[in-house]
């Protein structure tokens, strides 16, 4: 086994060790963080049960839905769409998933997609 190969194995062992080490520290950090910052009182609006739509901006959810509805309308009218955003973020993805349930619950009119 050459020196170079040995060196690369060393880098691998060291590198993956450090990656796991750092990630385990992050794990601890996340546990501490969620424990320390958990809301004591539980106003339903503030607690987001692991949702991917944390709504830091309460309008965001509304906007996303309005946009989704507008898109749906447009698609229905046009038949197809080839527009594709830059690597759709998971929020959009999961929002679409949740959208199905929500839209069935509420009948909203006058929604409009704004910038």
């Amino acid at each position, binding site marked *: 086994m050459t020196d*170079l*190969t040995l*060196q*690369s*194995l060393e*880098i*691998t062992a*060291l*590198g*993956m060790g*450090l*990656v*796991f080490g*750092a*990630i*385990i*520290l*992050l*794990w601890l*950090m*996340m*546990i501490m*963080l*969620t424990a320390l*910052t*958990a*809301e004591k009182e*539980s106003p339903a609006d*503030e*607690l*987001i*049960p*692991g*949702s*991917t*739509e*944390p709504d*830091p*901006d*309460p309008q965001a959810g509304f906007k996303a839905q309005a946009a989704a509805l507008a898109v749906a309308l447009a698609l229905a009218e046009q038949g197809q769409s*080839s527009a*594709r955003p*830059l*690597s*759709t*973020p*998971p*929020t959009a*993805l*999961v929002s679409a*998933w949740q959208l199905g349930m929500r839209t069935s619950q509420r009948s909203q009119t006058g929604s409009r997609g704004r*910038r």
Partner: protein
Amino acid sequence: MDLTSLVPELLKGFTHFKLGNGVMIFAALVLIYLAVFKEIEPVLLLPIGFGCLLANIPLAGMTAAEGMTKVLYDAGIKTELFPLLIFVGVGAMIDFSPLLAQPRMVLLGAAGQFGIFGTLILAIALGFPLNQAASIGVIGAIDGPTSIFVASKLAPELLAPIAVAAYSYMSLIPIIQPPLMRLMTTKKERMIRMDYAPKPISKKTLIFFPIVLTVVVGLLVPEATPLISMLMLGNLLKMSGVVDRLSKAAENEIINIATLFLGLAIGSTMEADAFLNWNTGKIMILGLFAFSLDTVAGLLFGKFMSFLSGGKINPLIGAAGISAFPMAGRLAAKTANDEDPDNFILMHAMGANTAGQLGSVIAGGILLSVVSKMLGIG
């Protein structure tokens, strides 16, 4: 003026055209074809392909000392500004709540980085010097800006093939991963359902997370700070909810312009003389290896966690730990769902996927740190 003396001037475009330029223009057309007709990462492959086209039109002057793509390269790649600005935008689009709701998922983000180091070993064995081997390995981060950031520091001469490999395979994830998923897991494993009743995540947690993460990772791996901090800045702009203007700018203007310019600038380095050689071919093959090894390692670790949990974890989510955000997460959920239409593991997969994003950046920083130290440039 002697008109016959003008003939070479008139035909100079053709007389300076070499076979290699033809090959690279064909490659550019393939990239544009994949982008436009197959919709494979079009926002990056289209500008990269067009930049490659321009770089191989002789005497066009775009890549010359004062040419436009040279100006863009110096302004945004050499300074690493473009990948970092893209990360601000990506950060504003990421949601860490699925991960924060199930913190142990973060371990999967470490497992999905084996490909980086495995590829490095193979690249060394193929004769690449250490700085180049490490840059090639970082294709296994399966994250465009990380690959570009590390490669532009360690081996800028390989930036173009590395970026092309990273983005091409990333878009081929739906073709690369599923066979490996089926190969590495049993049907029973793929059918494991996972409860999703995580503890609630407060808005405060979501705001503190990017700040604390920046400090912790910054202290642990200083080399990862530029990448992780810009990702977290974008996330903080979004999660804070008080700077709507800035998070919108990050998600739109900043990322769009940086993406277009980055693509053009990287494509413009694909000039035939510099690009057409065996190394490029080797890098493409090593890149595919990196993607596969990452996936396999992720799945194996998923199976290990499944075993530890007494079969309560679906090992498919391990494949989402490679990064390739958000495609890999979606794909893992889809594969489970294909096996059993009532099996929804999307939230778990997205948790592993965001962990993979973090793991990739951290691994990139660690690689940069270790290799710089060994090369005596750190």
